[in-house]
């Protein structure tokens, strides 16, 4: 049942591939604005890289939420799904598809942005450290949590309003812990100190969200169609 639902979501995403790619371009463009706007100096960019990449990723995830929930709500498919499948399965399939077509590409394209933000810059001949895999790991653990939490906000706001900004206002505060630990993973790595604790906390938040949010999202979807 879950696989059927997931397959449908992915098929719809493939038919809507332009809409799916927009958040990815948004991510790349927002990050690439910073060298122009702030300063092209490698040393400086390296310092702000963690924050910039994380904030941009977060906004890109928010931007893409609409696609996976609004359409089904408007054409009545959501009602049919909730009659025929359990709300938790519906919620989980949507979140999984959302992450696969938005979150995962963000993680995969992030090395490009690491280069752009001079993440691996080392001043005059110091031993070069590769921080890119650490950044990808932090995003890999953080983006699914953002998708899971975003799903709650999106489901709650489906019936309430047609304005996507409402979701942003509701959900962004909840993203703060992920943002703090996610970017501090990279900052710690840049400072050559341990980052295992931050990684562990990111993973813990993810597991916690994975267990609890599908239930909440399912309930919220039920409320949205009633």
């Amino acid at each position, binding site marked *: *049942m879950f696989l*059927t*639902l997931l397959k*449908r979501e992915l*098929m*719809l995403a493939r*038919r*809507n591939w332009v809409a799916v790619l927009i958040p990815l371009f948004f991510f790349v463009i927002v990050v690439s604005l910073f060298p122009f706007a702030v300063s092209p100096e490698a040393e400086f960019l390296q310092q702000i890289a963690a924050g910039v990449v994380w904030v941009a990723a977060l906004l890109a995830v928010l931007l893409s939420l609409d696609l996976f929930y609004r*359409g089904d709500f*408007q*054409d*009545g*498919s959501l*009602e*049919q*799904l*909730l*009659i*025929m*499948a359990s709300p938790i399965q519906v919620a989980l399939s949507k979140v999984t598809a959302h992450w696969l077509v938005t979150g995962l590409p963000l993680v995969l394209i992030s090395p490009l942005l690491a280069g752009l933000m001079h993440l691996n810059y080392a001043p005059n001949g110091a031993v070069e450290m590769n921080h890119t895999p650490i950044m990808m790991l932090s995003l890999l653990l953080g983006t699914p949590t953002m998708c899971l939490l975003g799903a709650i906000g999106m489901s709650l706001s489906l019936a309430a309003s047609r304005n996507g900004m409402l979701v942003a206002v509701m959900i962004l505060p909840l993203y703060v812990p992920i943002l703090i630990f996610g970017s501090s993973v990279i900052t710690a790595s840049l400072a050559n100190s341990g980052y295992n604790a931050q990684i562990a906390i990111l993973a813990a938040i993810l597991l916690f969200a994975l267990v609890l949010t599908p239930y909440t999202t399912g309930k919220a979807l039920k409320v949205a*169609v*009633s």
Partner: protein
Amino acid sequence: MSSKQSEPSSYNLEVKGLTISRNEQPLLEDTDLSFNAGSITHLFGENGAGKTSLMRALAGLLPLDSGQILWNQIKNTHPESNFNQDLLFLAHNLAMKHELSIAENLQFYSILRGRKSSLEELSKVAAELQIENLLERHFSDLSAGQQHKVALCRLVLETVKLWVLDEPFVNLDAKTRDWLSAKMMHFAKEGGVVIFTSHQAIEGLKIHQRISLSHSEEEAA
């Protein structure tokens, strides 16, 4: 309350003490209704009298203020109830994805019912409704009437026991109306339960029960 002596061949839907409201306006109060196997029920009433709300409540989408809905003597929300598998609810919105082809749309729903309908089955129903050469087209390419016909195909492709149809006859040509009446009578004959709303009288359709909804209170006729 939930005595499980249901015979496997007969199905019935019972509503006890149902109270529902929309936007804090009560639509039905403490209403008892029953829909027996093999019966066709026509819900009628003015716009806004609560026909759709009642249907959505029956489908388990609208929360009840009080009362309960029993399917074969088991509460519809009970984990042991097969209600959701047995129910086909067709609403105003056709619940079809514009990005998918007709065949994909219909097959997805039949997979959710547990059995993927084959292409032969699809083309057979589609031929009855004169949309057989549109099966590979995207849903968005169709006219309103054709889109409605696609949704009606689900009645044939999915094996269920209860049809809850909101305005199924609207937008249909005479030929398709006859087709739908015949399907409804056939389904009822096999022991299915049909509940539908319609503003017009449907000639040739044998209706077993009429329920009229009015703004203040409901009275079963």
